[in-house]
Each structure stands twice: as structure tokens, then as C-alpha cells.
């Protein structure tokens, strides 16, 4: 049904048709009912009139008693086929004359008249009528007639159907007309709309056919189309605009990206340049500093008077300060660049603190300050920490503390705060009795470059970077640095560090020699260098390679000071030539050189050597302080490396390690200045003189350092004995023995050697026996040193 009426045209057609049909049917039904009624009434009425007429005609027959005439009258009704029967009755009610249609039963003619009136039975209408003449009742007449309703109905129905047919035809025609007037414009508009949708052509317009609502609709449709057209045009143009803008934007983005890339490249280049610059600076500054400090060190070995030695010491200290400042700046640059890294390794906090104390004990004693240290024995003997960096922090703190304390003491304490999850939380405090810092200024301590004329600047001097770097380093180690200070009373700097516990077995062996500071001690027992040929024969000839003449000279002097003979080469190529002679057992080479650098040299030598036989030792001497240098050196096939400026002590370590001299039987036959009076003196004068080079000040300094280290070791020995720790007894006794031998305290050394042996055997009685001898010797040594100090 919905499908049939999908189009307006059909709907309209159906509406017209249905409306017409409905109206027709209703009208037809009404008229039908009315007509049937009217027909009946009319039939009845007609019959009555007929009866009246026939009666009138028959009245004379009745009055003059002429039934034949009457019969003749009623017989005329035969002409009317629908008359069933007729009868005339006298005034008395007797049948006077009658007629009946041939198909009508006789019984239908009533024998006697009824009351006047019309009666309808079924399809028959019957009437009785009085016949009067001049007001006199002369008889009655009866007429019966077929209504023929069925015929009537059929006829009527046929007519109505015909009418409906005609009306429907009319409706169809009307609907066709309507379609022209109403549907057609709508259908046209619908197809137009479809076209618009399909073809996106908004320029077409609907034709206005009429002035009615459809015309208005067409106008509105057209208006809508024109609006859409305008908007579409606007949209298209704005789209084009957007595309144009997009392209513009894209182009600009590309431009910017290119600019950014370019500036990024510039930044990278700049950063690279900065790094290179820093590296260069490090190298370039360290190279002359190498000359300065090396020569100063060598100069200190010569015989100087008091004033000269003081001057030399100041120059040396200043040089070292300058070097540290440079190191600080480099470190800070690395921090800023995020390149500074901590490299934890197995280390001992106690040893580390000991090293710091060893470095600064001279400074402290020269200012008559007590530099003491205490290490909590509960702290694990071996922890994971970057020893160099932690020492850097502590060096800085202690150096500051000494610098700003006029009298009193500086104390380093390491305490265990707690032990948790395989890690020791260690608090290291550096406490001084110095000038202190105002509370409001302590916060600024850790800011870099805080040296602008303030008290802080005075306190830290230099670059003002030390504490800032320390704070960063502590932070990188997972710890922190705090300062508590009271103006005029002193300052306590606290370093709190979590230190993972490590296996003590992995601790690097402490070298007794490494602990001794000062060039004099290092060269004390050295022989005079032999001739090159002797050294060659001995297999101890060294080749020093450096493009820098001063550096070459310094290194040559240092090497010879250590009892080695050496020759020089200016660059890698020359060095390679000389090495080919096969006379050299060890090469100390600079890394950065023209023509052929150190790495190339090493690689060339290694490739020239027979497979598997690394007969020549190659030690890199590099001013490059940046991380990764060691790896580069090892990768090139070098055996070891040493940093510029080369300290005599370090050089001695390396040489002793890689190229030990034959047994120095004739040690002690060197420069004997003057004999010490007491034959039973605790120190062998000859050894002492050789160590000090005959310099009384140097000798005192050496003795002071000896006592400082010795005090520590003695304390450690006492504690070890108290705790009955054989291992610690061995260690402490060994150290005291080593230090004693160095300065010629042979009796002490012998006593310690016995104790060490006893401890190794686990013989506590023997240890106890040795203890007395050791303590007696220590008392003598102490007295001797006191006397030496008093002489100054």
C-alpha cells in the first residue's frame, strides 16, 4: 500500500478518487434510502390517486347499478402491468366488480372492503378507497400493485454505479489537471532536487508555474539553492584560501625547521667546539703547568737555602692551586654539560680519609692546626664509591677548613648512621674552629661563582666552584651536603652518603709508597742514573716522547731523578725509528703530537712486535683529563697511563711497577751530608740525608709527615691489638715497617717486621713481646723528630 502511494501524484489521485468515491457512496446511499422511501410513498400515493380516479369513473356504474360498466372500468387497469388486482365494492360491502392479473391468485382479491387506506406488504402496495358522489358514499374500490422494489434497487444501483464510474473518470481527469497544477511542479522540483544532490549543480532553478503555495515553495527552493550556491562558492574559495594558507604554513614550517636544524647544528657545533675548547684548554694549560710543577719538584730536590725553599714552596702551592682551579672549572663545565660521571669502585672510606689527611697534614701543621680524623669502625671496610670524586669533595672541604681557621683544629669524622639493605649510610663531617659563616649566607655557599667580594668569596676564594661542585658530586652519588655554622665559632660541613657495601677482598692493595707524599721521599733511595749504554745493557733504558721541549725536559729530569737513563724523541715517527734500534725497554709518550701521535705510535709498535710478545712497555702521558682517555690508551695497546702534570711520586709508581731497577744494593751510598751524632739514633742518617737531599727543611717536613702517618698506623695497631685482630695487626705493622725503612728507622722497621711475622703466625705471646720493642722504638723515633722540629 505505501509503495503504491510513494509519489505525490498517486497520492493526490488516490485522494481525489477516494474522496469522490466516498462522497458518491454516501450520497448514493442517502439518495437510495430516500428514493426508496419516496418511491414507496409515491407508489402508495399514485395508487391512491389511481384508486380515486378509477373510483370516480366507477361511481356512476355503482350508482346506476351497472357492474358491467364497472368491470369494464377496472379492466382498463390491465394496461398497467404492475397492477395486480382491483375490485369495486358496493356501499353495502359486496363485491361489485373485480380484476386480477393473470398470474395473481384469486385469493388476493378481498371478499369485502377494509377501511380506506394504504397498506404495504412486502413488494405489494394495496389501497382501499371510498367512492363518494356528491358527498354520498356509493361504494369502495381496492387496488393492489407491485412495488417492484427489486427492480428499483437494481436500477438505482446501476445508476449509482454508472455515476460513480463517471465521477471516477471525472476525478481522474481532475487529478490529471491537479497533477498539472500541483503535482507536476512538485515532481519537477523533486527531480530537480535529486539532480542537485547528484550533480552538485546549484545553478539550476525550479520553474515557477503558479502563484500559490507551490509557487512560494519553488521560490523558497530557488532561494535556498542560490544560498547554497553562494555558500558553496564561498566554501570553495575559503577552501582554496585554506589550502593556500596551509601551503604557506607548510612552507614556513619547513623554513623554520630548516632554520632550527641549522641552528641546532650550530648549537651542536658550538657545543662540540666548547668541549673541544675545554679539552684543549685542559691540555694547553696542563702542558705548561706540567713544566712548572715538574721543574719545581725537581728544583726542590736540589740544595736550597731557607728563603729559596720557602719561595719554591709558595710557587709550588700556587701552581697546584692553579691546577685545581682549572680542574674545578673543567669539572663544572662537565657538570653543566651533564658529562660528569661518577665511577663507583670498591674502596675503603678509612683509607680515603687517610689520604685526605695525608695531603693536608702539612698545611695544617704549618698553621699549627691539629688535623685529626676519626673513622667509625662499624663502617664496612669496603664500599662502592668513586674514591677520586669523594676525595675531591673532602679535599675541598678540608682545604677550606684549614684556610679559614686561624687556630684550633680541623677534624674529619666518618660515622655510620645506619645500615640498610646492603648499604651503609655514612656521615662524613669536616669541623673547624674557624671564622664561621653567617646563617643567612650559608645557603649561598653552594651556588657557583659566589665570590663577588662577599664573605663567602673570602672564605672560598678561587673560583667559588669547589663547594658547588662538591654538592653536585654528592648529589650524583645519591647523597647531600649541608652546612651548619656559627659566626666566630666554626663551621661543620656534613656529607651524607649512601654507600653500598662491597667485598673487602676486592679492595686494591694499598701501596705503601703511594702514601708517601713529597718528591724527596720518592727519590730518597734512588741511585744515580747510569749511562745510556749501561742502562741499555741492563735493559732499563727509557724513551721519552713529547713534542713539547719543556715537557720533554721535565720528564727526562724526573726519569733520571728516579735512577733511570733515558733518551728523547720529538714525535711518534722519531720515537718509532729509535724504538726500532731495540735499545729501549719502556716508552713514556705524549698522546697528542704532530706527525704521529701517541696512539699511532703504540699501534705501530704493537704491530711491529712479534705476535704475543709485548716486550716494550708503553706508558701514555696525557694532559687530557677527560673521561675515556684511559680506554683510548689501552685500546691503542698501551700498558698504562699517567696524567700531566706528572708527579714524581706517580712516575715512580709506574716505573717501579713496569720497569723495576735491579736490587739497589748500593742504596744509601749517595749524598751523605753530615753524620748524625748519636750512633744509636733511631734513624739511619745516611738514608735520611739521601731522602732529603741534605735539605734540613725538607728533612723536617719528611719527618713530620712520617710522624703523622705513623701516628695513624700506631693508633690502628693499638686498636688491632686491643681487638686481637691478627689481620689488622699484620697490616698496621707492615705499614709502620715500610714507612720506617723509607726514612732509615731500621730498628723500628725490624721490630715491626718481627711483629708482622708473629701476627702472620697467630702467635699472640710473640706479638705481645714485639709490642714492647715497637713501642720503645716509637718513643725514640718521636723524641728524635721532636728534637729535629725544635731545631727549626
Amino acid at each position: 500500500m505505501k509503495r503504491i502511494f510513494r509519489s505525490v501524484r498517486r497520492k493526490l489521485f488516490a485522494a481525489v478518487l477516494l474522496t469522490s468515491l466516498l462522497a458518491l457512496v454516501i450520497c448514493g446511499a442517502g439518495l437510495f434510502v430516500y428514493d426508496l422511501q419516496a418511491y414507496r410513498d409515491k407508489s402508495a400515493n399514485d395508487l391512491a390517486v389511481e384508486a380515486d380516479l378509477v373510483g370516480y369513473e366507477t361511481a356512476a356504474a355503482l350508482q346506476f347499478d351497472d357492474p358491467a360498466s364497472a368491470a369494464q372500468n377496472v379492466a382498463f387497469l390491465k394496461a398497467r402491468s404492475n397492477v395486480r388486482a382491483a375490485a369495486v365494492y358496493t356501499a353495502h360491502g359486496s363485491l361489485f366488480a373485480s380484476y386480477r392479473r393473470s398470474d395473481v391468485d384469486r385469493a388476493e382479491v378481498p371478499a369485502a372492503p377494509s377501511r380506506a387506506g394504504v397498506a404495504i406488504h412486502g413488494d405489494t402496495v394495496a389501497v382501499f378507497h371510498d367512492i363518494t358522489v356528491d358527498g354520498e358514499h356509493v361504494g369502495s374500490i381496492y387496488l393492489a400493485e407491485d412495488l417492484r422494489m427489486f427492480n428499483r434497487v437494481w436500477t438505482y444501483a446501476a445508476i449509482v454505479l454508472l455515476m460513480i464510474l463517471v465521477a471516477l473518470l471525472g476525478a481522474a481527469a481532475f487529478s490529471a489537471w491537479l497533477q498539472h497544477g500541483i503535482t507536476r511542479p512538485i515532481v519537477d522540483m523533486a527531480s530537480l532536487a535529486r539532480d542537485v544532490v547528484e550533480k552538485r549543480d546549484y545553478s539550476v532553478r525550479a520553474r515557477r508555474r503558479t502563484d500559490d503555495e507551490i509557487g512560494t515553495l519553488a521560490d523558497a527552493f530557488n532561494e535556498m539553492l542560490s544560498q547554497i550556491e553562494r555558500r558553496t562558492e564561498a566554501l570553495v574559495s575559503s577552501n582554496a584560501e585554506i589550502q593556500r594558507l596551509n601551503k604557506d604554513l607548510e612552507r614556513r614550517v619547513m623554513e623554520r625547521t630548516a632554520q632550527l636544524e641549522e641552528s641546532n647544528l650550530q648549537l651542536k657545533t658550538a657545543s662540540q667546539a666548547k668541549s673541544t675548547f675545554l679539552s684543549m684548554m685542559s691540555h694547553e694549560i696542563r702542558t705548561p703547568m706540567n713544566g712548572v710543577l715538574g721543574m719545581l719538584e725537581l728544583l726542590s730536590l736540589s740544595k736550597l737555602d731557607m728563603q729559596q725553599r720557602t719561595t719554591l714552596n709558595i710557587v709550588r702551592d700556587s701552581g697546584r692551586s692553579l691546577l685545581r682551579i682549572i680542574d674545578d672549572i673543567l669539572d663544572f663545565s662537565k657538570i653543566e654539560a651533564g658529562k660528569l660521571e661518577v665511577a663507583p669502585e670498591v674502596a675503603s672510606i678509612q683509607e680515603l680519609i687517610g689520604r685526605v689527611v695525608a695531603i693536608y697534614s702539612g698545611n695544617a701543621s704549618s698553621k699549627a692546626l691539629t688535623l685529626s680524623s676519626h673513622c667509625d669502625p662499624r663502617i664496612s671496610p669496603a664500599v662502592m664509591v668513586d674514591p677520586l670524586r669523594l676525595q675531591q669533595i673532602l679535599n675541598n672541604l678540608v682545604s677550606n677548613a684549614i684556610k679559614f681557621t686561624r687556630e684550633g683544629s680541623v677534624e674529619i669524622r666518618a660515622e655510620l648512621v645506619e645500615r640498610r639493605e646492603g648499604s651503609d649510610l655514612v656521615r662524613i663531617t669536616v669541623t673547624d674552629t674557624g671564622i664561621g659563616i653567617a646563617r643567612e649566607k650559608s645557603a649561598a655557599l653552594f651556588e657557583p661563582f659566589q665570590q663577588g667580594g662577599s664573605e663567602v668569596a673570602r672564605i672560598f676564594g678561587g673560583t667559588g666552584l669547589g663547594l658547588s661542585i662538591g654538592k653536585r658530586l654528592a648529589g650524583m652519588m645519591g647523597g647531600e651536603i649541608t652546612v651548619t655554622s656559627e659566626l666566630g665559632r666554626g663551621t661543620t660541613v656534613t656529607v651524607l652518603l649512601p654507600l653500598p657495601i662491597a667485598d673487602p677482598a676486592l679492595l686494591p692493595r694499598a701501596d705503601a709508597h703511594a702514601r708517601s707524599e713529597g718528591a724527596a721521599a720518592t727519590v730518597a733511595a734512588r741511585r744515580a742514573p747510569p749511562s745510556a749504554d749501561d742502562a741499555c745493557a741492563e735493559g732499563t733504558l727509557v724513551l721519552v716522547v713529547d713534542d713539547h721541549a719543556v715537557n720533554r725536559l721535565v720528564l727526562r729530569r724526573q726519569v733520571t731523578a728516579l735512577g733511570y737513563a733515558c733518551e728523547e724523541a720529538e714525535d711518534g715517527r722519531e720515537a718509532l725509528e729509535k724504538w726500532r734500534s731495540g735499545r729501549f725497554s719502556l716508552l713514556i709518550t705524549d698522546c697528542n703530537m704532530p706527525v704521529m701521535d701517541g696512539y699511532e705510535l703504540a699501534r705501530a709498535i704493537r704491530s711491529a712486535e712479534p705476535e704475543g710478545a709485548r716486550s716494550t712497555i708503553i706508558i701514555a702521558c696525557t694532559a687530557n683529563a677527560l673521561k675515556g682517555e684511559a680506554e683510548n690508551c689501552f685500546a691503542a695497546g698501551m700498558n698504562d697511563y699517567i696524567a700531566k702534570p706528572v708527579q714524581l711520586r706517580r712516575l715512580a709508581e709506574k716505573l717501579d711497577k713496569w720497569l723495576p731497577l735491579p736490587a739497589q744494593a748500593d742504596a744509601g751510598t749517595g749524598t751523605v751530608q753530615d753524620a748524625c751524632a748519636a750512633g744509636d739514633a733511631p734513624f739511619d742518617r745516611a738514608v735520611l740525608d739521601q731522602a732529603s737531599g741534605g735539605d734540613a727543611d725538607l728533612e723536617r717536613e719528611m719527618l713530620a709527615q712520617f710522624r703523622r702517618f705513623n701516628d695513624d698506623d700506631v693508633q690502628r695497631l693499638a686498636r688491632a691489638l686491643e681487638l686481637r685482630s691478627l689481620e689488622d695487626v699484620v697490616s698496621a705493622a707492615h705499614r709502620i715497617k715500610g714507612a720506617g725503612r723509607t726514612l732509615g728507622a731500621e730498628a723500628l722497621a725490624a721490630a715491626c717486621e718481627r711483629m708482622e711475622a708473629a701476627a702472620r703466625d697467630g702467635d699472640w705471646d710473640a706479638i705481645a713481646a714485639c709490642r714492647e720493642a715497637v713501642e720503645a722504638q716509637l718513643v725514640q723515633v718521636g723524641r728524635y723528630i721532636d728534637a729535629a722540629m725544635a731545631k727549626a
Partner: protein
Amino acid sequence: MDFRRALTLVVACAAWPVHAEPSGVALQQRIKAAFLTKFPAYVEWPSSAFRQPQAPFVIGVAGAEPVARELEQAAAARTVNGRPLRVHRLAAGEPADDCCHVIFVGSDSGPERAAELVAQARGKPILTVTDTQDPPAGSVINFRVQDDRVRFDISRGAAERNQLQLRSQLLAVAREASDR
């Protein structure tokens, strides 16, 4: 006797005896009297026939005394054409042209009298009724007895001459209707 009952009686006498009593002079007289009262209903008189609107309808009877009596009896109870009915006995030789609307000449009056009266009425609005085997010319209606039933003949020519119009019904029931 009231009108209705009398009418019933008259009509009964007029109709019923036709078969019940095939012959009977008295009955025939009564029927003739009844016919005489019924004829005016089928005849139209010119208006000049009546001097006044309410002038009585006069039936003149010559001879035929029984008929006259019957008429007089009926006259008391009925009207003719809306007018009171009066019966006027025509004496011998009495002219009938002045007063009567209907003149009945009984068979006992003789043909001469009948002819005289008919002639007198000729051209005048008078319905002349005779009762003879050989009615005189100008007689409008003439009774006849046929098969013992009272019937009548009509002369339309006479009626026209007397300015009378006869209705078709009357002509239809007449035994014979001539243009004479």
C-alpha cells in the same frame, strides 16, 4: 327516518332487487325515483337555471304518483347538487318550463303529455326524463327496463339543446346514448 338509513334503503332497493325480484313494478318505481335523484350529479345546468344561489332544485313529476311519493320521501332527507330538493307535481296541462329543473313524465301520462312537456322544455335548461317505449324527440333521458333491470337511454342532442352537459360517466352507464 334519517337520511342515511333512507339512503341505505333506497340503494338497497335499487341494487338488490335486480336479481332477487326480477319483476316488480313498485320496485322499479322506487329505482326510477332513486335514479331521478342521482342524475343531477352527472348533469350540469347553466347558471341561469337558478334564480338564486340557494334556490331549491325542483323535480317536476307528471303522473307516476309512486315515483313522486318516493321522491318526496327522499326530498326530506337529501339535497341535490347542494340544493334542497323539491318535488313539484305537474298537473295535467301545466307547463313545466318555468320552475322545474328536471321533468319526469311518467308512462301513465301518455305520449301526448310527454311530447307536450318535452316540447315545452325544449331549449330550456330542463332535464327531461321520459318513461316510454317510444320517447318523444327532445327527451334527454328515457327509462327502459331490460332483463328486468331499470336502464336508460340518453339523447345527447336533446341535452345540448336544453343547454345541459352530461358527464361521461353517465353516458358510460346508459343503455344507449345517441346524438339525436
